[in-house]
């Protein structure tokens, strides 16, 4: 089980040329969702525009990493 988990993480952590950056998408998604939760749901954080815009930017980066443009390589 542990070996499988490590294998999965390894797969997620590596993306070759012209491949979607799945690990990056995962990181941006976790960070964006967490900050978005703090910014939009938890009122005690009294989040300013930077925190709110930051969470949206991170979610946009998650989309960009998932749909990474297939740029020819080498250029």
């Amino acid at each position, binding site marked *: 089980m542990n070996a499988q988990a490590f294998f999965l993480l390894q797969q997620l952590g590596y993306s070759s040329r012209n491949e979607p950056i799945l690990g990056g998408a995962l990181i941006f998604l976790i960070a964006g969702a967490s900050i978005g939760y703090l910014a939009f749901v938890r009122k*005690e954080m009294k989040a300013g525009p930077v925190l709110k815009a930051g969470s949206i930017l991170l979610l946009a980066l998650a989309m960009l990493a998932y749909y990474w443009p297939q740029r020819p390589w080498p250029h």
Partner: protein
Amino acid sequence: MVTLTTEPDNESLELESEARVGGYAVSKRSRWPKIIAHAILILSVFVFVSPFIWAFFTSLKPEAEIFASIYQIIPTEPTFENYAKVWVEQPLDRWVMNSLVISTGIVFFTLLLDTMAGYALAKGRFRGRSVTFTLVIGTLVIPPQVVLVPLFIEMNWIGWGNTYWAIMVLFIANPFGTFMMRQFFMTVPDSLIDAARMDGCNTFQIYTRIMLPMAKPALASLTVFTFIFAWGAFLWPLIIINDGAMFPLQVGIALLTGPYTSQWGQLLAAAIMAALPVLTAYLLAQKTFMEGIALSGGGKGQ
């Protein structure tokens, strides 16, 4: 009845007029030390800023003009050709994305772990707290180069060689952040925690609902610190990554220099582009950055 006069004599009037020059309380005697101090500061700024200015102007020169004359710093015909070329000919977009992935991951997980650890070390009551804190601080004095080879072997042993996780995991365990957050949480009065506990909060709820909102300034400082550090990371990614598609920006730029020939204009253009996010982060959060330095150095210790 005695009347007190408040009219100043001529001498005091002269001194007062000197004192109000420029809105500052400056007398003739204290002017020279200030002038000397400012001269030293301006010279220091010039020493530190001039390489950046040289790099920027050189990146605007055509390749043939770069080493034509050492005295011609400002280009005669400035061009953005190097910026366009390095973007088109090198996979700069992918390297920027890799750097963003790594920096975001490091910042997010550092904040998560360091706030938890700092809270536990500041407000937790458990056996071995001071020993744990001493061990955390002790890791600050170990030079990172010492552990590079064991870490390289360890990462390859668990199959994380050439992955984002291998780069991030080293920087996430950040003793400086733990120390900084602990110093901040030490300043929070215990009465707040007691009040929250009386209202029915458990330890985790106190952390999320009371401590985290209060720690926003410290979190902002740590974010800027960690981002700047993670964005500039070079040695560990250079060692653990061996695929050009996985390089962070700093490693990619360094490897633009070849053994026989180097495109210095493109290299400097890439370096200027690499410095932009850090400069922007610093300029946007300059006040926060300064507060963070004061916080990490001036907090209450135990």
